[in-house]
């Protein structure tokens, strides 16, 4: 559905006398199949928005090429526009218009006739739970209501692909959960959804596949589960009395499923295993058979942050 090769963009910015070149995006290759929620995860300034704006025909790439929904980005941007929807990071509604007016106008800008545009606006208002506010000016909306209008604007013409730049930033947990449901519904309707986010949990829970971006480059790509598996496997933490720890270490160190083992200061062990789910029963059996007193057992799965950390040497939480 989306295929990019070597997409590049740099900006020249002037600071006083000096002109500095910022390489915002340096060679991005992506393959996004139809019907999936694809996530772009990365810290501030990674180049997510710049990539999206190139794909949405808003800025011209310095180099590289892309095919979007079958249309060539460079040769036929007009056709790309007809096939995609785009919701900007910074908002796109006019204070003095109502949500309904914005939706009707948007549909009509895509060449849809007036009555059909009105019908679609009414349907979108319902789908995004906006009926109550439909005829109020946008400036009276809450942040979450406004964001919902903007998403609705992006899909009013039923595009094949919609780009959502940080759709949930600034939403409260409940609105966020709602938004996730809306986005899943778009996928269920057969749309390809391309979102950007810097929330780890969002990338993890919502996206079928993600690309992790840092300093203008994709540093990792895959399903969240694959990416995490690639990293390290799971960690099983076994809580034991300090006195029992030594014996348990001897017991488990030789087990073939344990890759590595660490002692915990407060008593107990940390075991690095490939697959936590199968390792836990075996650990339990060994500990139990030796008559050791088990205080707790916890399974830690590596997070996307661990993935980011291994790929870039920095934590996404800190950056």
């Amino acid at each position, binding site marked *: 559905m989306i295929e990019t090769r070597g997409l590049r963009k740099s900006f020249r910015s002037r600071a006083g006398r000096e002109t500095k070149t910022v390489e915002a995006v340096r060679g991005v290759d992506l393959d996004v199949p139809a019907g999936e929620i694809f996530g772009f995860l990365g810290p501030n300034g990674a180049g997510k928005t710049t990539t999206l704006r190139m794909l949405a025909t*808003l800025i011209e790439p310095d180099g590289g090429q892309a095919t979007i929904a079958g249309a060539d980005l460079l040769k036929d941007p007009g056709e790309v*526009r007809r096939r995609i929807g*785009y919701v900007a990071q910074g908002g*796109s509604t*006019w204070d*003095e218009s109502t949500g309904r*007016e914005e939706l009707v*106008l*948007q549909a009509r*800008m895509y060449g849809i006739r007036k009555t059909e545009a009105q019908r679609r606006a009414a349907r979108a208002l319902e789908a995004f739970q906006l009926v109550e506010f439909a005829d109020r000016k946008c400036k009276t909306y809450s942040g979450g209501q406004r964001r919902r209008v903007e998403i609705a604007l992006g899909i009013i013409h039923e595009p094949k692909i919609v780009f959502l730049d940080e759709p949930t930033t600034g939403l409260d947990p409940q609105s966020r959960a709602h938004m996730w449901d809306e986005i899943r519904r778009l996928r269920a309707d057969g749309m390809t959804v391309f979102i950007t986010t810097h929330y780890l949990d969002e990338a993890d829970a919502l996206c079928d596949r993600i690309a992790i971006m840092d300093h203008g480059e994709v540093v990792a790509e895959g399903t969240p589960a694959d990416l995490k598996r690639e990293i390290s496997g799971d960690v099983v933490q076994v809580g034991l009395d300090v006195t029992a720890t030594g014996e348990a270490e001897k017991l488990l160190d030789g087990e073939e499923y344990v890759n590595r083992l660490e002692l915990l200061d407060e008593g107990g062990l940390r075991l690095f295993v490939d697959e936590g789910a199968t390792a836990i029963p075996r650990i339990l059996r060994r500990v139990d058979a030796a008559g050791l007193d088990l205080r707790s057992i916890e399974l830690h799965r590596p997070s996307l942050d661990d993935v980011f950390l291994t790929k870039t040497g920095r934590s996404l939480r800190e950056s």
Partner: protein
Amino acid sequence: MKLARDTWLIFQRQLHLLLRNPVWVFVGVFQPVMYLLLFAPLLKPALGAATQAEAYKIFVPGLLVLLAIFGGLFQGFGLIAELRAGVIERSRVTPVSRLALLLGRSLRDVVSLMTQAVIITLLALLFDLRVFIGDLLLAYLMLALIALMTSAVSYGVALKVKSEDALAPLMNTVAQPVLLLSGILLPLAFAPGWLQGVAKWNPFSWAVDGTRALFNGDIGDDRVWQGLSIIAVLAAAGVYWAARQFARSVR
């Protein structure tokens, strides 16, 4: 066809938003009336006109051209607000015609200017101004072209500078000499020769002369077709240039 449809769409939207703002409607009507009632009475003695009607024949065309210039030149501010709100970017990802994004807005400005012009003309009729309808319509065409040009240029500049802080001084710098050198408020007939020479290079001076000729009933006067042609060419150039700004990436 698509251009006409898209232009109509943008025009409707812009006009709708304008009419929804009662402050604007009030100012738009109130301002020209004030000019007419408070400034015009000074004219008869100042211009040495024989009658009040005579003074209006000189002053009203100048006032209308003035309104057309200023009505257009400051429209860019609204566009910068739209730019900031993301409305322009949102329009630019749709297949809507880029020329329509400009024309829809500029035509709204032309229509609001024409409304002002009609109000002023009607009021001036009460004060014994007399002008043939054909001449008047041609004068209105001149005004529409002026407003089209100045608003298009203002939008184009707004898209280039992207900030009110830059747009305001820029437009003022342009407007001031244009105003002083056009003989809008007082005819340049009173000006010394060198000033008249400089004014020859000011297209608005030609526009004012042409409009005055029309109000005077001299439709055959060379200044009429000269003024109209100059302004028409400039309006076309302004629209072309500004539409290209809409097509280029902004923000």
